């Protein structure tokens, strides 16, 4: 299992959080934590997502990026780590 931290900026639509959560689960990533600032009235929502998976993170980054409301997805390498479990 690998742990990853994603930094996502999105158009601040009400449903954007739900879309991210749905894609994350469907693509085989377990959410281990999140920190979201959405519906802020600024048009920009920011979501920090901690996920865990056997799968390479690029798969999830590409799929989240495909969501129409997403502006940017970055993997925070300093916070991501490999667990030898």
């Amino acid at each position, binding site marked *: 299992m690998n742990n990853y931290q994603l930094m996502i900026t999105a158009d601040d639509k009400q449903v954007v959080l739900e879309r991210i959560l749905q894609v994350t689960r469907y693509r085989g990533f377990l959410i281990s934590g999140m920190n979201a600032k959405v519906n802020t009235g600024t048009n920009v929502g920011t979501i920090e997502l901690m996920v865990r998976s056997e799968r390479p993170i690029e*798969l999830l980054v590409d799929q989240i990026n495909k969501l*129409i409301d997403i502006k940017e997805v970055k993997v925070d390498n300093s916070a991501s780590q490999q667990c030898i479990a």
Partner: protein
Amino acid sequence: MTTEKKLTGASLLFNVLEQHGVAHVFGYPGGAIMPIYDALYDSDVEHFLCRHEQGAAFSAVGYARASGKVGVCFATSGPGATNLITGLADALADSIPVVAITGQVATAAMGSDAFQEIDIFGLSLACTKHSFQVTDINDLASVLHQAFAIALEGRQGPVLVDIPKDIQITEVNGCLDELVNLQNKVKLPPANVGSAIALLNQAKQPILYVGGGVGMANAIDELRDFAKITGLPSVSTLKGLGAIDPEDKYYLGMLGMHGTKAANIAVQECDLLIAVGARFDDRVTGKLNEFAPNAKVIHFDIDTAEINKRRIVDASILGDLKVNLPALAIPLAIEAWKKVCLQMNEDFAWDYNHPGESIFAPAVLKEISDKMPENSCVTTDVGQHQMWAAQHMVFDDPSNFLTSAGMGTMGFGIPAAVGAQVSRPTDCIIAVSGDGSFMMNVQELSTIKRFQLPVKIVLIDNAKLGMVRQWQDLFFNGRLSETDLADNPDFIMLANAFDIKAQMITKKSEVSAAIEEMLEHDGPYLLQVKIDAQENVWPLVPPNTANDKMMEST
């Protein structure tokens, strides 16, 4: 352009539809969408009443696939909306541009478990490319414009717009925005042509693997030029059929689970696989880690997320095929390999010899294919008959073969044919169905009757859920479970009840005359073709097996 006139949301919807060139919609009315149906009354958009919302969704899909335009369907809230879901899922799996409009209960009632309220917006997340719920009338026009743009941009797909009833009746200035042209949101890196050219030049046994993306990108000419200039032998996915020039003698047919022996062996032996608008689906690859085991891969696609999803590639060429294919079209020195492929095409050609009097479905479909007029469009349902159609019919364009590929949805064929016929009223539309699938959207015969659509239905009748029966025989020790349909209705009487002329044939000697009668008939026609229940689709690559270890007819 802003007009002084006040419009209701419902009227504005039709103005925007007309602005996008929508001439036909498929749908079914109900309480929460009544204002929209009221505005339909005054609109020039032609509405086709289907007899189930799933039929409306598939008709929109068939319309889009046959014409290249966006297909539009309407449904009311609650059960109307949920009935659309299978069609939307089908459109998502096959990347088909559809805009679905659903009525919703009034905003004040939303979230109160109101009558016919379902959270279709929530349900849409997994089965659409994108979705909207309009809660402010001032957003309606721009949301609808975005819906059309998103359905068409990049990798196409279905978009749902949920419109609460109060929004439909609220008045707004009749403002028609300029059509927006969304640019591809994901900025694609410039195609890495150099490394791909090097791979092409090094390859001794390359194969072109053609997917549905070629048709979706409208890049048929570019693909055919690419195949001609490079001289590459090619194979196709189910959804890619029709993209390669059917006269190309180095075209080896469909690959994958029911692919030709030539296509599967060539791919297994190739040293370079050039995937174009294809996604390494499990029905194509068989056992993934034994698929094309010696091949390097070049992958052309519009969708970044398909690159390295199931197969790590050596070069990716992201972007528009119309631009990228010509950039890589260079002559290749692969004469020896081309000869091998040609020889395989000869050695493994289909054999239509079939003993006995009972009808051989592959031969029937081949004969229809040979006799049908130019520009005919064939739809299928799902099962053995679908695979036989894919194997034995020849198509010169992907928009002439509409089949539920990614989702494999039974019930697709008849409503898709309705949509295809509406979009191409003068072309011959043939639905190849099975006795199981036919019954899944049989109510759409009523739509055929209502609009006098001259759809030809070829019902391959084995009185079985044949494909499942085949698997039970081969992989479940012949324990046949719930696949017998001996109690099917009288299909001739059923067709006649919808004013559809029908004929049943049971013997080889009847086939040719029956096909001619069907093709010459002016109106809708059902040809019921009785076949032996024990016929199987060959070749077959068993599940989780490499594609060269196929089972063949004995």
